[in-house]
């Protein structure tokens, strides 16, 4: 049937049609979801109808107050990141960003359903949805990420690369990431990576494909991916991270703002007098998600080293320094962290004494494993001689903290007061 209204709305588009900000669209989505959830709940409880409230206004106000944070739970359709990375940590529901991005190309759509970041560590739940048969076919062939079989020689070759990472699909698997110089066969004629989904900071060379699939969420038309990123440092160059994502005919990217998602502050540390240690802590950046201890080293040799880990100080000592470091909270509890970054050179123009991130990491529950790292030394060889399973993921359960409750930090044998 000739659809006259469709034709007319195309022939005479509305004058000055508004292009809403993503934030406003998200607020509408959140409001509609909230209303649906409320109605579902009322049906289940068979309660009398509640008086109509200005529900979107309430949600908008709450979103504005909390930089568009909407409290949600896994039961309500969100909270996958919470379950995967943060367990039942308090505060995380308050900061979880939902439905933060949407794009589509006619065949598939992509949504960033969940996002948490403090600018240093970022987590995103990405969902692809097939909109057409062509999109479904493309999505099903999105298997470039699913290289699960490598020969032992290939694994050894990859392990020699400084750019070595992982992704997971049920079992964890090795995967080269980094410069992508060795990935030419995956680039299109414009040099853009095809099929690759990754997250990258604006102000650091660090990026990660970090893609874990989430098969439990997938349907015939949907695939989910979990992205996580550690950028080691944060300076003043920007608050955004980019997500590069392939669509059926091209690769695109979007920038997500990380500012204000979680609370954060930087506090000065008075150096320990007459210290015989090789490092001098000068300041600490605290966020609800992670912390970094900034400072310098005691000799010019180390202080003039370029970015990286090639210090004169043995790395083992750096690691020992991290093992004996924890925050002290007002109620006396201790908060430990993962040791994601050690001795990473930074450019702090405002603080010439803080040349390095001495140590940076995410808070973790006390009973979790120390390392959030992937151990590539473990792999299994199948009957045909190929690697069928590689890597052991020594993960830990992350947690968020109330930074206003931090009163001090213990670094090895010295306690530093952090009260403002």
């Amino acid at each position: 049937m000739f659809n006259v209204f469709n034709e007319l709305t195309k022939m005479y588009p509305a004058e000055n049609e508004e292009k809403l900000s993503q934030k406003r669209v998200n607020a509408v989505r959140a409001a509609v979801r909230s209303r649906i959830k409320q109605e579902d709940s009322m049906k289940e409880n068979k309660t009398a109808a509640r008086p109509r409230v200005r529900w979107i206004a309430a949600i908008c106000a709450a979103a504005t107050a909390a930089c568009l944070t909407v409290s949600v739970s896994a039961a309500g359709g969100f909270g996958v990141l919470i379950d995967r990375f943060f367990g039942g940590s308090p505060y995380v529901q308050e900061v979880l960003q939902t439905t933060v991005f949407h794009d589509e190309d006619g065949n598939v759509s992509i949504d960033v359903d969940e996002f948490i970041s403090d600018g240093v560590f970022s987590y995103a739940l990405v969902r692809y949805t097939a909109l057409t048969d062509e999109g479904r076919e493309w999505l099903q062939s999105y298997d470039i990420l699913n290289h699960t079989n490598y020969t032992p020689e290939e694994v050894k070759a990859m392990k020699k690369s400084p750019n070595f990472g992982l992704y997971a699909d049920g079992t964890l698997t090795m995967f080269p990431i980094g410069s992508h110089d060795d990935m030419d066969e995956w680039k299109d004629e414009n040099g853009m990576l095809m099929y690759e989904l990754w997250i990258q900071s604006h102000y650091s060379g660090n990026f990660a494909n970090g893609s874990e699939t989430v098969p439990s969420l997938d349907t015939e038309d949907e695939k989910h991916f979990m992205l996580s990123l550690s950028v080691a440092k944060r300076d003043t160059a920007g608050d955004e991270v980019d997500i590069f994502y392939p669509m059926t005919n091209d690769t695109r990217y979007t920038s997500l703002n990380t500012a204000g998602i979680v609370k954060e502050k930087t506090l000065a540390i008075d150096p320990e007098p007459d210290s015989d240690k090789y490092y001098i802590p000068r300041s600490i950046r605290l966020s609800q998600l992670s912390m970094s201890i900034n400072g310098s080293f005691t000799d010019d040799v180390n202080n003039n080293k370029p970015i990286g880990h090639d210090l004169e100080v043995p790395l083992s000592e750096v690691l020992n320094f991290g093992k004996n470091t924890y925050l002290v909270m007002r109620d006396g509890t201790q908060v430990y962290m993962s040791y994601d970054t050690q001795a990473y050179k930074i450019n702090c123009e405002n603080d010439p004494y803080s040349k390095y991130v001495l140590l940076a990491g995410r808070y973790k529950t006390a009973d979790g494993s120390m390392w959030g790292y992937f151990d590539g030394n473990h792999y299994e060889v199948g009957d045909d001689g190929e690697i069928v399973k590689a890597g052991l993921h020594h993960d830990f359960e992350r947690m968020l903290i109330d930074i206003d409750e931090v009163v001090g930090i213990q670094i090895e044998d010295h306690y530093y007061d952090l009260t403002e």
Partner: protein
Amino acid sequence: MNNEKLDEKLISRLKRGDQKALDIIIGRYSGYVCTVIRNFSRGALQECDIDELCADAFYKLWKIREKLEISVGLPAYLSAVARNLVKDRFKTLPPMSCDISELELASDIFVEDAAELNEMMKYLGEGVEGLSPIERETFTRFYIHGEKISRIATLTNRTEGAVRTALSRIREKLKKHLTERGYDHV
């Protein structure tokens, strides 16, 4: 895939209770719906009211999803829903300082019930097909997008009086078409 086919696909998913399809629809049409609400409300609503009605429109779409048969196209359907919501809002608001006579002029074209709205718009579409091109544009801009008569006059190089006359004729034609098909209350 063109927009109509994509909409059909999304509506099909919506009917199966897929909330993510609703998210996509909101992403595609919230700007349009807000524009329609703003146009029809003639500046009488605040931003938060517009956002609230916009969300109401999509919530209404969700509520009636199982009975949804949008033969008229999603934008026109959402426009009609949004417009009815504006009208409802004005019924509950205190008297406004602005002139809502244009709203009253338009209000008797559409009805409240979603299923009836579907059917009526289908017949309305047939009636609109019988209009001249300039009448179609006038109809679309005024009744679907909610644009002001003064703006339509500028866009179509006519006087406001000529646009009002044209709208009156269009209304009579469509009323006749609908009345012949059983909509005697129009």
